[in-house]
């Protein structure tokens, strides 16, 4: 790995950390649970690493490890985004109007 690649990576890390701090500090406590599931879904991007490992046919061990990794990170990506949306749908400013009521009984049935 060349020095330039390493330095570029460290730049990306430092700037992402700074930006992340700024953006996430603004998330109100109200949304901390959805924040956790959202960041979890986003970091499921490690899926892209697993995809290469699972599909590149380096050898059997790698393929298997890759396959398990693809499954695990897909669970996080799909599940994480779905549950974040399920939670965010429930947050309403005003007491529920008629149309919202239906939405919420649906939620209760699911739960």
């Amino acid at each position, binding site marked *: 790995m060349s020095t330039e690649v390493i330095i570029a990576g460290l730049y990306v890390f430092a700037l992402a950390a700074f930006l992340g701090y700024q953006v996430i500090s603004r998330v109100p406590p*109200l949304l901390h649970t959805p924040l956790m599931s959202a960041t979890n879904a986003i970091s499921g991007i490690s899926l892209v690493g697993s995809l290469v490992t699972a599909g590149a046919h380096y050898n059997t061990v790698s393929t298997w490890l890759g396959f398990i990794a693809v499954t695990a990170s897909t669970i996080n990506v799909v599940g*994480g985004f779905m549950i974040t949306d399920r939670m965010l749908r429930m947050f309403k400013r005003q007491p529920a109007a008629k149309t919202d009521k239906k939405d919420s009984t649906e939620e209760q049935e699911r739960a």
Partner: protein
Amino acid sequence: MGLLIELTYLAASILFILGLKGLSHPETARRGMIYAEVGMFLAIVGTLVHKEIVSYEWIVAGLIIGSIIGGAISIWVPMTAMPQRTALSHAFGALAASLVGVSEYYLHGADVGTFKMTALSLEVLLGGITVTGSLMAFIKLQDWIRGTPITYRGQNIFNMALLAATVVMFGYLIYDPSAHSLFYAMAGLAFVFGVLLVLPIGAADMPVVMSLMNSYAGLAAAATGFAISNNVLIIAGTLDGFSGFILSILMCRAMNRSITNVLFGAFGAEVEASTAGALGSMREVKAEDVAVQLAYASQVIFVPGYGMATAQAQHAVRELANILEARGVTVKYAIHPVAGRMPGHMNVLLAEANVPYSSLYDLEQINAEFPATDVAVVIGANDVVNPDARDNPKSPIAGMPILEVDKARWVVVLKRGKGKGFAGIENPLFFKPNCGMLYGDAKASLIKLADAVQHA
């Protein structure tokens, strides 16, 4: 082709940041998540055309199985079990990161340079700790083992020694990446350390553990990014890592404790006599009497705690609040940052019960309102309303910011039994003259109250 993949990654990174930015307000949050989803989709499609990928059968199998499991969990998990689901997802994320790390090392072994070796080792270390640590947290949250800290003599020394051994291995591997067995031994130790780290941590400290595991899982993903030179992984992992880190700090601040104290303090293991002298007696009240006070109050504040989640009482709270509001009573909800088992837990439960978020108040916003409140209703919360934290410097929770319900004109505590709170600390609130205890299952009590208010 390589450029195209990199461009999808760049787009994904930007969309992820926009997505998190959307979470700064409930109105923009869902749109933000759509940005993030589009970003994820682009990155995955971009990767699938990667030149090194020659066969798709394992990929497709993994994607399908993962989608089914992930989708099923997210549709059917009850909101009260959100902490457990989150703990599991930290374990899955970390598992993926550590497996990619092991596979990379297995492939390239001794040929990796110093920098890549550092990244791989960090990835496997953080990943391993998070996998087993989160699973332990899951087991504790699910009540498969008791939630109290599990301690033994020399625990901290043993854990420290183990950690030191792992660090030494880490250092040696960077010096000599060809030490294969050492790498796998280090990975194994990381898994063991995860279990040992969470064993002594009590259930009430879970919000901190959840946040820390969130952070580690993200950092493991970022380390993966360094190991395979992938910027979008570095960015997404770092965002996740810092999000968890910020939440850990907020949670610790809300308990006035340091992270070290949470991790190694085994809080709640021993019962201490915190308040000197007799506290007097607790006064048990009847639902009918409480109902009258609620019915003729002008402002009522509900203070939910983990007890509300275990009793699944969020809908019953909302029912009671509806009836009160129909009578012209102002109803507010006071949410302590560490109420429940994960950050934001109570907010989600109340939102599920259709409570508008404009009625949910943080600690700083609501404390000034208690003196002007007729009735504060504490539902399965204990330590977060313990006035000892404010008044008694000798208390184990001294200095922890609390919801000052004792300043309300009248306090009703809904509690399962006469036992102490989780931390085993006596709560002087229960003995105050303006406090009444309503024993029983929180949900049943609330339904009884709602019924009685209607007849008041």
